[in-house]
Every structure is written in structure tokens, then in C-alpha cells.
């Protein structure tokens, strides 16, 4: 099912939940709403679910306006952060609940619930109550309950945040695989950028009730549309620093204290028009280079496979990942090379990327 949000807003009195969201979700697509807490991602999801009524704008399912359609008539399945498994019902009763509400004949109800439970690998737990299940099992029951009525749209509200790190990893790929197999259009809310990057076909990045970007994970990572996204996505985060960009003799130069970089024309042209801009460069795009710019190691954090080092050039700190065998220590002098083909430039006022349009 296709979902379309047109200028969607939600306000409570003067408090703005979300403002002017425009979004197109294709049939079978897996879209992640990504943003810090309070950014409006769950509010938007609850409007799609029909639990919140929009204050403005339109929600369309396959072109049909559903603003006034109640959640029970939207044919959606939803997985909650708390799982929301009914504690007084067994696993079987929980999973079959949506079918029971549709007055499905009992034998069909049991058969379909059992089939979904088997698919989720919890087929032998049908008589248990939720309180006697592990977190991962509860998660599967919640998924089963969302899937049993074969919905046209699946909604996930931070479903993995209550699981431990290892289980989260395996459930992540399991949910993704399931979604591909079933081909159900899905919206997944999370504040975890790794979940967003790994699962999404497209990521809608939100902040303060507004949509900052709606791009593929690669675009979100390689060409973030706003300074906020540049800072929010990526771990360790992107280095951001203020530079002056100018054009001399047909070449573009970005300079700040102790730093002088030649940048490709396609990236530098718009920045040069602004003069003073914010430059972003990811830690993996800075490397030790004997031909590079001199600096001093300020701190070293061993991460196992790499060391994250903090190098000071002038008064500005740059973070980069280096080979642990280099055995760098605080105070060491190093020279840094910058992969300027991956430089980002942002307008200082609007904080918008100068690489787009």
C-alpha cells in the first residue's frame, strides 16, 4: 500500500508536535523515521495509525484520504516499544486478538495464529502468558499479533529499544528479512541511526517537528542535507569546522587556522559564493599522510579495531580513525591528509547543505 502525507501537522494548543510533513511512501517500501526524542517521529506514526487526529494536512492510503478513518478500519499492524502484550491473555489469545475482533471462525483463527507463531518461532509457547516470556519472545509475540490479520501497513514504534544489544542485532535483521519476504509497506520509528541505516529503504530524518531529509541511507550519510543530519548520523560523528572558501586561479581553497585545502570545483563552487561556511568531513576521510598538514595528537581512544585519535591543527580538533599499530600517543606530531572529494559544506545561517540543488 502507498502512503502519502501532505503538509501534515499536529498541534496541542500552542505546542507544536509536527509541522508541515510531506512524505511519499511506495508500496512495499521500508521507511524509517529517524530523530532524537521529542522530534515528532512517534507523533507522526500515531497519526498514520489513526490514534492521533491531524491538526492539519492529509494522510492518504493508496490515494484515499483516511484522516477520518478510525485505527480499526485502517488495516494496519503495529508493534509498540512496550510490546503492549495484553497481560491477561495467553500468547495464543494475544496473537489471535485481531482475528477475534473480526469475528473470524474459531478454527480458522487458531490455524492462522499458529501459522504466524510458527513463522515467528514461538509456536510452542502458545499457552504462556506474556509475563513468563523473555524480552525477545515478547517481541516476537508482538510482531505476530501485528502480522496475523495480514495488514497492508506495518508500523513499528522503537520496537528494539528494550532488548539487549545482541538480541537487538539479530531481531533487526529478522524484522528486515520478514519485511522483504512479506513485502508489506512499513514505517519504523527509531532514534538509533544504525538501525535506520541498516534497515531503511529511505530514511526520513526529523527534528523539532520538521522533516529535515527524506533520502536513501547512502545519501543521508554521504550528502547530508542539513548540519543537524551531518552531526546526528555517523559514529564517530562528522568533524565540523568553520572555513573560508575562495577561488583563486580557477582552483577552490578552503582555509582556516593552520588549514589550507584544495577542494573539487563541484563542491566548492557554491561555498565560494558564500565565503565563510561550515565544512564537514567524516573521520574516515581524514588519514595520516606524510605530505599532509601538520598537527599534534591531543587524545587517543582505543576502539579495538581502530584507534580514534583527536588531532589539533591550530586550535581546532579533528577526529580520525587510525591503525592501532601506529601506536600514536598524546603529544605526537602527525601530518593529516584530507579526502576533499568527501567534504561537505553548509550555509552558516540556514544550516542547509550547499551540495544540494
Amino acid at each position, binding site marked *: 500500500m502507498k502512503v502519502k502525507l501532505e503538509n501534515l501537522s499536529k498541534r496541542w494548543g500552542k505546542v507544536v508536535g509536527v509541522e508541515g510533513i510531506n512524505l511519499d511512501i511506495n508500496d512495499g517500501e521500508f521507511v524509517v523515521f529517524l530523530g532524537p526524542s521529542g522530534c515528532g517521529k512517534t507523533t507522526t506514526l500515531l497519526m498514520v495509525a489513526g490514534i492521533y487526529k491531524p491538526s492539519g494536512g492529509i494522510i492518504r492510503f493508496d490515494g484515499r484520504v483516511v484522516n477520518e478513518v478510525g*485505527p480499526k478500519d*485502517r488495516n494496519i499492524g503495529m508493534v509498540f516499544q512496550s510490546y*503492549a502484550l495484553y497481560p491477561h491473555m495467553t500468547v495464543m489469545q494475544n496473537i489471535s486478538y*485481531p482475528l*477475534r475482533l473480526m469475528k473470524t471462525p474459531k478454527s480458522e483463527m487458531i490455524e492462522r495464529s499458529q501459522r504466524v507463531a510458527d513463522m515467528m518461532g514461538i509456536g510452542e509457547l502458545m499457552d504462556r502468558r506474556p*509475563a513468563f516470556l523473555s524480552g525477545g519472545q515478547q517481541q516476537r509475540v508482538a510482531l505476530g499479533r501485528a502480522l496475523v*490479520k495480514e495488514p497492508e501497513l506495518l508500523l513499528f514504534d522503537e520496537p528494539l529499544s528494550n532488548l539487549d544489544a545482541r538480541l537487538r542485532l539479530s531481531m533487526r535483521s529478522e524484522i528486515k528479512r520478514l519485511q522483504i519476504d512479506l513485502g508489506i509497506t512499513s514505517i519504523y520509528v527509531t532514534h538509533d541511526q544504525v538501525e535506520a541505516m541498516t534497515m531503511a529503504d529511505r530514511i526520513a530524518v526529523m527534528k523539532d517537528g520538521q522533516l529535515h531529509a527524506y533520502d536513501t541511507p547512502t545519501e543521508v550519510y554521504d550528502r547530508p542535507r542539513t548540519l543537524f543530519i551531518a552531526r546526528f548520523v555517523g559514529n564517530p560523528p562528522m568533524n565540523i569546522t568553520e572555513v573560508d572558501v575562495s577561488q583563486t586561479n580557477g582552483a577552490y581553497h578552503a582555509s582556516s587556522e593552520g588549514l589550507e585545502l584544495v577542494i573539487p570545483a563541484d563542491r566548492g563552487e557554491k561555498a565560494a559564493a558564500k565565503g565563510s561556511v561550515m565544512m564537514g568531513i567524516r573521520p574516515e576521510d581524514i588519514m595520516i599522510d606524510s605530505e599532509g598538514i601538520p598537527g599534534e595528537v591531543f587524545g587517543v581512544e582505543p576502539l579495538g579495531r581502530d584507534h580514534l585519535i583527536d588531532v589539533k591543527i591550530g586550535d581546532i580538533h579533528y577526529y580520525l580513525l587510525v591503525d592501532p599499530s601506529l601506536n600514536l600517543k598524546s603529544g605526537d606530531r602527525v601530518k593529516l591528509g584530507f579526502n576533499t572529494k568527501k567534504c561537505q559544506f553548509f550555509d552558516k545561517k540556514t544550516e542547509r547543505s550547499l551540495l544540494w540543488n
Partner: protein
Amino acid sequence: MDLKLSTERGGIQSPSPVGVPNQSSKVTRLRSKLGAYGFMAPAVVLIVLFFFIPVIILFILSLSDLKSANFGTLQWWLPSNWSLVNYTKIFADRFFSKFLGNTLFYVLTTLALFNFGTALAIALLTTHINRRAGFVFRLMWLLPRLTPSVIYILMWRRIASRVPHGIINQFLGPLGITSGEDLVTALPWLFVIVVNGLIGASFGLVIFSSAIEAIPRDFLRASKVDGGSTLQTIRFIILPMIRWPILFVLTFQTLSLLTSFEQILLLTDGGPGLFRTEVWALRAYHLALSTESGNTQWGYGAAWAVILVIIGIGAAVIYMRVFKFDELVQEPKIDLI
């Protein structure tokens, strides 16, 4: 000192060689016990003074034949004057079945229609509307309980009185629905039940609405997304989740209705006619404390009251054991994952 004490208690395997630390630990233990009893003492004194002693006196009275005719001459406290005659008299009373029937009818009808039914309906209603409006609406239902009984009943008497004073008659009379007579006399049970029910509903209302509001919202959202209408969500999710508060209100209010009589006393005094609305507790009052009949039968009245006390204690035991009332008070029995 404290540290030593705790190791002493825990380390049973190493008996202390000298008596001194043992003695000091005994003193400390005694002191902490005295502290606990000290804090409990006022409550214990009150309960003994105003519950246990009156109940014992009541029980002894119920075995005697004390009445205004032999007051001052009968030594009711002497076991030689005790017998079970009063109890056999209760069951032999010509109107026994009338009183029992009245009581059952009054308790069950008021409970079903108001103390449980209305309370649950209003609780569900006020938790499904705007929060503040719901709160105000619930507050209004507390008014009958907050109004002094005499004023509350006088108000109802005026509302139901005959033309030209009665408000109901003024509205319904011209429509031909009422004929202008005193409505409490015409429909005594209706008014007894409504008047009591409007007071009683607020108890369940407060308990139910706080229990409903304590249900995590995700459950209700999940039920809606799963395809549940409001009624289905109430039936399959909300009611099972508040089943403990429901049981509590049902049992507690049954007891409360069994023993309350002052509204009936003030409204109909058990009438009109012979015992039309006379319930068990009112019967006990009339026999033991009302001087209108000229002969106050303390002993016989006490026997009627003792039976209510026994039912009450029995119910208290059931609360504690079966419903685990103490746990119920500590935290809402809505089991969360």
C-alpha cells in the same frame, strides 16, 4: 555496635564466648520492639476502645433481655441472665422474611444499578473524554457524599413532595405523568434506591476511574490498532484489567449497603405502611435505639446488630485471605509485564 549486632545475628555458627554482647543485643532488640509497639499504641487503644469493647458489650447485650421495662433491675452482665432467646426470636419474627427480603432487594438493586453499574459507566465515560472535563464531572458526583445526610434528605423530600412544593410534580404533573401526590410515599423503593445510589456511586467511580487511568495507554492503542471498537476494547481489555478493583468495590459496597440505614431512616423511616422499606440495619436501630415505640429493646436489637457484625467480620476475613486486600491496597493489581 550496630555492626557487631548484625554479625551476631547472622553468624549462628559462632556462638559468642562472652555474655556481654548478647545482653546488649537483647536490650537493643527490646528497645526496637518497644519503639514499634509505641507507634502502634494509639491505634491499638482506639480500636480496642471503640471497636472490640463495644462489640463485646453488644454481644453480651444480645444474650440478655435488657429493655426499658427492666432497665436498672436486670443484671445483664451476669452469665446467669444470658440465653439465645433473642436469636431464635429473630428467626421466628412474623416479619423476618419481609426484613430479609427488603435488605436483599435494597442491597442488590442499589449495588447493581448505582454503586457498581453507574460507577462503572461514569468511570468509563469520564476516562474517555477530555481529562479535565472528566475530572470536573467526577467531582460533581462527589457532591451527594459531601452533603450532610439531613440536608441531602431534606432536599430530596422537597424535590419529591406533593404539589405545589415538589419540583418533580411541577414538571411532570402538567404532563400527566405524576398525579401530584407525595412521591416518596407513592414510590418509596425508587427513592430509597436512587437517594442511596447517588451517594454510593462515587466510591466505585473514584476507584474505577483511577484504575482505568492506570492502564498504560499502549494497551488501549494496541487494541484499537488491532481492530477493536471502543466497546470491544472495554470488554476485552479494560474490564479484565480492572477486575481486582471491580471485585473490591463489589464486596466492599455490599457490606457498606448492608450496614447503612440513616438515609432510609430520614427518608421513609422504614415506611410507608408496615415495614415497606425496613431493612436489617434499620430494624436493629428501631428496636434498640428508637424510643418511639415506648419500649426500647436493647437486648433484642443488639442480636439483630450482632448478625450484621458477624457478616462484616466474615467479609473482612475474606478480603484479607481471598482477595489479598492488603496487597490490593499497596499497589493496583493491574499486572504489568
